[in-house]
């Protein structure tokens, strides 16, 4: 033993019962990976039930981590290694494994009875059905229990340390440092020394087991990835989103007010901001989504930065109030962490199918800006951008993230807040030298002046009835209505004028096919494009942050290519918007599986498209 192979990338999936601590195990492994300077990307996968019956497929919880010595973009389509803590975990995940994958199973649970419950007549670990894989079965539970025997825990608590045993083993196998996990356990169980020590012992025993068992012919190492210099941390999308909102509020000098109602996968935004009370953040868990956005709107009216966060069903409920915000022209940030729909759908699965709702889902002509984040870390920048737009243009802004971004993690170069531009809320504080205050007057961006309650001399009333230009008084005048409808639209359309030029990625400059994406499909698209390019073909990619209004230079770009492919986790929503706006035959590449788009499938499909389109193009380096 002791031989160490270098590999460039590995995908490991930890899977077990909901109670087996797989999320924690994966998270720890990821942290250690981060410390080694690998690039990584993670995909937690929760069961729909809180704790479905033990040993059932429905109760399997998993965590996938992809780490590499280069810049990666996705958590990986298919795991190289599956850690299966019980037969259900094996059954639930087997179909995702490529031939030759390593299966590391805890045999403790592979009893005839448990297997029978799952419909197995024989033990798959030993009946030869897994011969396409490299299967290693160990009694991880037994080994862990033995390792923690000195601590006299109950049987249940002792068995629970098996996840740390497994983590120790994997840490050994992939040459991860031990210290991070040891420190973490010491912190986490500081109040329960027995549990702490047992977990530490189990972890060390797992590590030692790798060292001593002769099963593994080699261990592996993945070198650190070249990354731009900076200070990094691991971050999930929901955390980055919360921090981005806080940064935006701080940059604008406003108090952040979050009104929210819990809903998967958005609840963490509420949880994280609820812990930020010492940063002046107010959170309100409202009675429902309507009250949540209502309170946020009230807070914005009062001069705070009102924000609300939710997922699809909650978005549907908020629309009437958002329409009011459009009419009032008040700043407001609405975060939609999308999940698979319609209706309740698959709450723990990801999707990008709320774009239509965000852009078009209100009664009347109620235009508002819609922007989307492309990676967990990017949620920070997108949140900041949402705050900027909301305050600059006095408008509600919808920010689209999704379950994959929200829960997924990646290394993130922590920005220096001092370097970020300030945002000026530009409240009017004094009555005009002459004439009356006109709350619906316009600046050069068509934004209106905001005077918050408490400002003397600027008392005025706003409301949801159509308002006269300038004064904001109630008006039923037909011409005024037409004017105001077009003005609200023009204000939003005008946001495009301030956007930086789009950047198309096309290293060879020869691409005839353009792939346009938005949101979390950034990972699969850019990874697939890299693979396509490595195959010697040229492909251009363009990722949109701003979905409404669309950037001013987008039409020209689209028209430059022979084919435009739009991969989305929906039935082609962005594709349809682009077609309408630019009359370009954008083709939808649609996957609606509740999972990120498969990068290898996408890469293959793109290659087919390119080869068909440019059959005579010489393939360099092939």
């Amino acid at each position: 033993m002791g031989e160490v192979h270098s590999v460039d990338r590995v995908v490991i999936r930890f899977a077990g019962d909901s109670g087996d601590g797989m999320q924690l195990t994966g998270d720890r492994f990821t942290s250690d990976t981060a410390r080694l300077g690998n690039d990584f990307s993670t995909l937690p996968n929760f069961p729909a039930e809180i704790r479905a019956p033990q040993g059932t497929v429905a109760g399997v919880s998993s965590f996938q981590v992809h780490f590499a010595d280069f810049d990666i973009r996705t958590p990986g389509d298919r795991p190289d290694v599956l850690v299966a803590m019980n037969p259900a975990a094996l059954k639930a995940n087997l179909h995702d494994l490529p031939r030759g994958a390593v299966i590391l199973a805890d045999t403790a649970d592979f009893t005839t009875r448990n297997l029978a419950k799952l419909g197995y007549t024989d033990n798959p670990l030993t009946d030869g059905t897994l011969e396409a894989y490299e299967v290693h079965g160990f009694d991880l539970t037994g080994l862990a229990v033995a390792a923690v025997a000195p601590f006299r825990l109950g049987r249940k608590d002792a068995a629970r340390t098996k996840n740390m045993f497994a983590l120790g083993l994997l840490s050994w196998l992939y040459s991860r440092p031990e210290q991070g996990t040891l420190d973490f356990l010491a912190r986490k169980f500081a109040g329960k020394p027995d549990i702490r020590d047992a977990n530490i012992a189990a972890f060390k025993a797992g590590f030692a087991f790798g060292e001593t068992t002769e099963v593994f012919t080699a261990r592996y190492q993945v070198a650190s990835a070249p990354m731009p210099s900076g200070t990094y941390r691991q971050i999930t999308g929901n955390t980055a989103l919360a921090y981005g909102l806080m940064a935006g509020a701080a940059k604008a000098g406003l108090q952040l007010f979050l009104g929210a109602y819990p809903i998967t996968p958005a609840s963490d935004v509420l949880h994280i901001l609820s812990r930020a009370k010492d940063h002046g953040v107010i959170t309100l868990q409202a009675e429902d989504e309507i009250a949540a956005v209502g309170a946020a709107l009230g807070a914005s009216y009062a001069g705070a930065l009102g924000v609300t966060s939710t997922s699809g069903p909650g978005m549907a409920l908020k629309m009437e109030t958002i329409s009011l915000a459009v009419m009032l022209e008040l700043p407001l940030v609405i975060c939609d962490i999308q999940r698979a729909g319609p209706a309740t759908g698959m709450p723990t699965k990801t999707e990008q199918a709320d774009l239509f709702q965000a852009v078009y889902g209100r009664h009347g002509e109620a235009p508002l800006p819609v922007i989307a984040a492309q990676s967990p870390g990017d949620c920070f920048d997108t949140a900041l951008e949402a705050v900027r737009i909301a305050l600059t243009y006095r408008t509600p802004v919808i920010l689209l993230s999704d379950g994959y971004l929200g829960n997924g993690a990646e290394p993130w170069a922590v920005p220096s807040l001092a370097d970020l531009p300030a945002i000026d809320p530009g409240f009017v504080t004094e009555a005009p030298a002459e004439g009356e205050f006109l709350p619906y007057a316009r600046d050069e961006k068509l934004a209106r002046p905001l005077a918050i309650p408490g400002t003397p001399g600027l008392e005025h009333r706003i409301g949801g009835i159509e308002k006269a230009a300038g004064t904001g008084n109630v008006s039923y005048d037909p011409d005024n209505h037409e004017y105001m409808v077009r003005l609200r639209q023009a204000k939003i359309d005008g946001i495009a004028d301030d956007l930086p030029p789009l950047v198309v990625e096309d290293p060879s400059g020869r691409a005839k096919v353009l792939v346009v994406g938005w949101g979390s499909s950034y990972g699969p698209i850019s990874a697939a494009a890299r693979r396509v390019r490595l195959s010697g073909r040229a492909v251009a990619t363009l990722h949109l942050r701003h979905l409404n209004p669309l950037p001013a230079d987008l039409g020209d770009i689209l028209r430059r290519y022979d084919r435009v492919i739009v991969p989305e986790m929906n039935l082609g929503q962005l594709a349809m918007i682009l077609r309408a706006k630019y009359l370009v035959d954008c083709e939808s590449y649609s996957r609606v599986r509740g999972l990120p788009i498969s990068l290898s499938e996408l890469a293959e499909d793109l290659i087919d498209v390119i080869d068909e389109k440019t059959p005579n193009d010489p393939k360099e380096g092939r």
Partner: protein
Amino acid sequence: MTATAPGLAGVPLSLTPLNRKDFTSDQEVRWCPGCGDYAVLAAFQGLMPQLGIKRENTVIVSGIGCSSRFPYYVDSYGMHSIHGRAPAIATGVATARSDLAVWVITGDGDALSIGGNHLIHALRRNVNITILLFNNRIYGLTKGQYSPTSELGKVTKSTPVGSVDHPFNPISLALGAEASFVARTIDSDRAHLTEVLTAAVGHRGAALVEIYQNCPIFNDDAFIDLKGPKAPGVIRLVDGEPITFGPDGSKSVVRALDGTLSVIDTADADPAQVVVHDAHAADPSPAFSLSRLTDTGVLQQSPIGIFRQVERPSFDDQVRDQITMPQPGERMSALQGLINGSDTWTVN
């Protein structure tokens, strides 16, 4: 300098005395002739200068309905929002700012039909807002459908052979929803209106004031038996006083053994038996039994006054107590620390 009434603590005082005209906006009032809303508006505009607070620190949030046009007519900050949502919006205003006097204007449909949930949650949370519920027992703005306070059998456009919905008693509902201040008054009694509204805005926490309001167009004379100082059916609740009413106090409210209340002739009542009103009782049960003295059908008898007024920390105060905003100079560095977290690594 801020106001002294607990409900207004934190709201700055006006340096100059204000008058009714200061609270009159330039918008033409557009209710129907004879609408009870006029009287409430007048009482309100008369009361506001008395509070002594700065005009610009008053915010009025309303929903949708005839009554909800109210904010347009008051020269303060105001928002005419959407149907039923004013309590939620006001919760945001009041929680974000401790220096504002926040009013909610709503109707029986707005507050009790579409907005019922926000109302009961604002009450249980005890947000520091003053809610005026204009109860005309009808939908005015949509031209006359029955509302959740219309009596059984009510014939309206949507109930041509009579409604079958048992109505809410807004006072009972509010008490069931843990309200700390619950009162009722009537458009036709200006002095009582002013008195109750003054107490309500002075209360710290959510104050619900049900206002019986006549709609001459769609539900005329719904409160006719309660109109005027001599109305026989008006049971005036005065804290600390025995509850008698009617001509020369000829009727008395007495409590039966099972705790329920009933009305008997004062002549037949043992004075010791007559209920003495205690609006400050910690237990809402006595107020609840009083609320049941209101007729469920066409109104002939109903208590007015403050049913309940107890101290309980307000939601927004408690929220703010949990929060510390770093000094401006420190805010960014504190946030930088949070964002960095405890587990960073550096790439050079």
